[in-house]
């Protein structure tokens, strides 16, 4: 069942999305990725990983209500 989740955009992804955060309804991260690309077609030019509730995701994951998904382009700190 789809859950309402919060998506945070950072770096180049934020520029493309034109927003720091948006809500989505998604069952898992695979479906969420698809929806993000539908809403923001420009996102296909951005390399990014996902964090779920502040933890970097290594594989796709189911989502539950109020999960926070961050869209993370390659890090540039230092």
């Amino acid at each position, binding site marked *: 069942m789809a859950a309402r989740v919060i998506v*945070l955009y*950072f*770096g*180049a992804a*934020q520029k493309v999305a034109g927003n720091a955060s948006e809500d989505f309804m998604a069952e898992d991260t695979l479906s969420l990725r698809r929806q993000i690309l539908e809403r923001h077609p420009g996102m296909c030019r951005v390399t990014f990983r996902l*964090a779920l509730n*502040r*933890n970097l995701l290594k594989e796709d994951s189911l989502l539950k209500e109020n999960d926070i998904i*961050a869209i*993370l*382009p390659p*890090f*540039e*700190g*230092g």
Partner: protein
Amino acid sequence: MKNRYLVGGPITPLLISELMTLGNDDNGAGAVSIFIGKVRDDEVNGNRIKALEYSAYSEMAEKEADGIVKTVKAAFSDVRKVLLVHSTGIVKAGEASLFIMVTSGHRDHSMRACRHTLEMVKEKLPVWKKEIF
């Protein structure tokens, strides 16, 4: 989570001096290794960089920085203190955006742990930058 590792704006000489004092109250530490990352006034397509604007996923960055410090302390047995600070917001060319300080009994671990901390910062800290010309 309180910001312990991120600081708004440049890491000023005054802050560096305070951090060094903070890490320095330990008469068993014979070695202090410090790395300071600074914004370079590089030229990009004929334009010189005036500043970098750093943005961070603060909550995750604080968690990751804490994990880096714990990992380094666990990996290098002679290490006594690890201080780590990264800027967010605007940092002008010539100013510092990263400060790492590692103390240890002897020189080998402070130097290796300082380098290891830096490589982990590059790899794990969710921080991004935007050039300002």
